[in-house]
Structure formats: C-alpha cells, structure tokens
C-alpha cells in the first residue's frame, strides 16, 4: 500500500485524495456538460462561462491595474521597489492617492454590479415584469459617485487641516 502510494505520488504528482476530489469534480462537470449539450444554446453558455474568466483576467484586471499605475504616475507615488537612495513615499501624496482611489473603486464597483440598470438594458422585459417604464439610472450613478468623491475630498481636506 505504502509503495503503491509512493508510486502514485511520483507519477501523478499528488496523493490519492487529490485525484479523488478532482475526479468527482470532473464527473459532475461532465454530467452537466452532457445534460446542457442538449440545449440549443449550449455554445452561448460555454462562451459566457469561459468569456467571464477571459474578461476578468485579461481585460478587467489589466484595465484597473493600469489605471492605478497611471494614477500613481500622475500623483507622483513611486511604484518601483526601493532602490539605493530612494526615500519612503511622501505620506501627503499617499493620502491624496488613496482619497482618489477609494471613491473611484466604489464607483467602478457600482457601475459593474448595476450596469444593466444604469444603461437601461432589457426595457421590454422590465416593463413586462414591473408594469413600469425603465428609465436608465446613469444619472443616479453619477450622483452617487459624485457624493462619494465629494465625501472623500472633504475628509482629505479635514485630515490635511489637522496636520
């Protein structure tokens, strides 16, 4: 038994528990794939499933990481590791950076989560479901974002004044 386990480990690269849970996982996925392949729209489902990963990993992440680096560049907060003669980041610039970052992230989060409502997608299904007309909430989102930026700016000023 011990020898068999050692051989499995050497060949497969992990223990039997690893193999077992993965096989279970792929069994469930395989069954679902088989069941869903009967749907006329299975291709779209697969596209959305894989597309979600691609959009997050190769679009959303690079976009927000790049935006953050650009913001740091504009505000003069160093991103590179400390080299010889570098000083710690200026705490005042750091505070400004974070007072822009926080409302920007919050606003982006709201945009992402409430996107269909902000852009007024699905007006017909909306009317059928609610017996009301759909009015895009884009202005509301702008208002919420504006309030968040304003609050952050006030807090920043308050902190600066205290120093």
């Amino acid at each position: 038994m011990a020898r068999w386990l050692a051989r499995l480990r050497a060949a497969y690269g992990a223990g039997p528990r690893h193999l077992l849970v993965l096989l279970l996982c792929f069994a469930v996925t395989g069954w679902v794939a088989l069941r869903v392949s009967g749907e006329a729209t299975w291709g779209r489902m697969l596209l959305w499933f894989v597309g979600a990963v691609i959009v997050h990993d190769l679009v959303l992440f690079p976009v927000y990481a790049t935006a953050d680096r650009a913001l740091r560049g504009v505000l003069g907060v160093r991103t590179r590791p400390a080299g010889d003669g570098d000083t710690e980041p200026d705490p005042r610039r750091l505070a400004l950076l974070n007072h822009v970052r926080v409302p920007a992230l919050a606003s982006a989060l709201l945009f992402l989560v409430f996107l269909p409502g902000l852009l007024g997608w699905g007006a017909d299904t909306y009317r059928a479901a609610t017996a009301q007309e759909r009015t895009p909430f884009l202005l509301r989102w702008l208002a919420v974002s504006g309030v968040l930026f304003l609050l952050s700016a006030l807090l920043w000023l308050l902190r600066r004044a205290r120093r």
Partner: protein
Amino acid sequence: MPAPDPSTQDPADTGRYGAPRRLWRALDRHRPPGTDTVTRGWRSPLRGPWLTSVYGLALLVTLPLVVVTGLLDYAAYAPRFGQAFPTDVGWLRLPYFDWPTRPAWLFRLTQGLHVGLGIVIVPVVLAKLWSVIPKLFDWPPARSVAQVLERLSLLLLVGGILFQIATGLLNIQYAYVFGFDFYTAHYFGAWVFTAALVVHVVLKLPRLVTALRSRSPGAELRTPVAATRPEPPDPDGLVPARPGPPTVGRRGALALVGGGSLLLAALTVGQSFDGPLRRTAWLLPRGQDPGGGPNGFPVNRSVAAAGVRPEETGAAWRLTLRGGGTTATLDRAALLAMPQHTARLPIACVEGWSTVQTWTGVRLRDLAALAGVPEPASAHVRSLERTGLFRQATLQGNQVRDPDSLLALRVNGADLSADHGFPARVIVPALPGVHCTKWVSGIDFRADG
C-alpha cells in the same frame, strides 16, 4: 525509505516533476519571452498567503450559504411536480420534500439571502482574484498531471463564480442579454461551481489554516501603512519577488473590500422592505416607487404582459373548481359571500425582493371542501394567462390546507388591481411569488397527489 506522510505533504508538490518528467522539465526550460518580466513585475507588497486566506475565509463562510439557499429555492418550487426549472436535473438536486408554509417568511429569507449575499460578496470575489492573479502567469503552468487537473478545476471555479454572478446580476435587473435560458444556466452553473469549490476547499484548507495562523489579525489591524511589510516568501509564489513600497496597509485592503460590501448591502437590502426603506435600493428595479394606495406594491408580471383582457376578468369571469368528480362554478359575488379570511403575508420573488401585504379572500381549504376534496393531497391552479411558464402551478397538500392560504380577492382593504391579479389570486405562506398564481380561472383539487 518509508513513504512520506500524506498529511504533511503538499497536495500537489510544487517543486518536483511528475511523470513524464522529461516533458515537464522541457516545459519548465522553455520559458516564453516575457515570463520573467511579468513575474518580476508584480509590485503589491500586500499579496501573500495571509491576505488571500482572509478573503478566502470570508468566502468560505458566505459561499456555502449562497449555494444552500439557491438549492432550497429550487426545492421551494416543488420540483416533484415538474414545475421547478430546469426540470430535468437527474440526481443534481436536494431530495424531494414538502416545502413548509411556516415560517411564512421562509422563502423571503432564503431568496433574500441568496440574492443579497450574492451581491454583497462581489467585492470579496474580485479582491480574492486580485490577490492570486500572479498565479495565472506562473511558468511552468504545471509540473505534473495533478497540477494540470487542479488548474483545470480552477478554471471551473473562477469561470463558475463569475458566470453565476454575471447571470444572477443580469436576471435580477431583467436584462437577458446572454440569450440562453437563465434557469438552466444558473442552476447547472451552480453545480459546476460547487464541485470546483469542494475541490478547492479540500485541497487548500490546510494552506488557509496555516496562513491565517502565520500572522496575528489584531496586529495587522494596528499596523499603519508605513510599517506594512511584505509577507515572507511563500511556496505558492503569491508574495512578489520585488515588492514596491506599500500605499495601503493590510488593514486598508480589508477595509476597502468590507466597505465595498457594505455599500452594496446598503443599496440592496431595501428591496426586501416596504415603505421608505425600499427606496434605498436606488439602483435596483425593486427599489423604485411602486405607486401609492392599497395596491401600491411591486408587480411581478403586468396584466398587459400576461395578455389577460378586461372582458375576461369582468362580469363574465367564473372560477371553476374540480375534484372528487364534482365541478363547481362560482362568480366573484359568490366568492365574496363565502367566509372571508384576512392574513398579513409576505410575497417574495426569485429576484430577491419581497413585500408584506394584508390579503383578504376565501381559504383554499374551504374551496377544496366545496369541490368535494376536504383533505386534498395537491391542487392544480390555472390562470387566464395564455403563455408563460407560470400560468399554472401545483400546490402541495400542506400549502392548500394552511389556514392562511387564500384565494385572495382583496388586498389592504381594496379590490386587487388588474396588475395584482384581479379578480382573484392565490397567496400561500412561504410560497415563491410566481406560484401565487394571478388571474385564477380554475383549481383542480386532487385527493391522491
């Protein structure tokens, strides 16, 4: 040499190659151009097993709740009557059981939790993915078959959670831009995700425990930005090789994610309440003003969309009751002449919103007795609607017999409005909203299920 103790060994040995060794070694040696630049390019001094594990722990607590409430919601549709969608799910469901009518707020709770938690965890999911994204660009991508399979399961895990969040968010906002059936996709997507989650938890839980124990949460919460240092190098390579200076502490990173969750919660919770609180769900369809008066609460399907015409619901409307070989036909006046019962009951929708109203009408069990089936095992309710998945519903015996289960004629002291199901609608405690059939035309009571 004795075999190594599996419990102390890494689940998928990171440093060594599995079979065939030559293949994995060759893959390792042939690094695509730019790999090193990417690896050395990760800057955040916060990335590391501790932070990843804190986000992981938050998800470990909440995700099972989202999964279980989702499965319960499917069960609430009484799948054994073939009225939960998708209908053909094989063994991928909870065992059949009678969905209870008590507490009356049960479905309101399970569905509100499912949708509410699903929204609130979005920032945590995004933060967790941010914390592990360097792993995506690791080279070699695998050193053994075990690692290939595990990475494949991670595709299912990440694809699963993003797919569920995307389809769920689009559904509650009535934007069916994906062009496939929401129920089918969301239900089966959940199983793929859950299976991958089980794998991830089984394989990574020991790591999570070790990582959480590696730092004191109290000390982290007291550490200011300037004193924040990277975690020591970890075997998974989450800690960057050349970290930049910190711009946020770990405390800040956790506060940012928690704040995002709170913001979403504040903008979501209102859809489960009535009165001024509802308006706080400012960016959601169910946070809008449903209008005033006794019928001023959210509608789930308009009379226009249902295609029910005024002449069908006017003086010519009749309710047909069948059961036990007898048929009874009643008009609205006859129903109003029967003993009326009033109940204050919630009605909750699969999109996560709910409302509590005061309904008045005839008890379903009185109608069952009238139809000659005093102890019904089930009842089949039909609507005047011509199309749609929910123009009919089968109620379980306990749902017909509950003293608060009504064929409602009035709400809050006024006649039902056309959009709320005039001349008569079903209201049953803890029953999913779409099974509280509106514009009822007939009920068949069955003694034998």
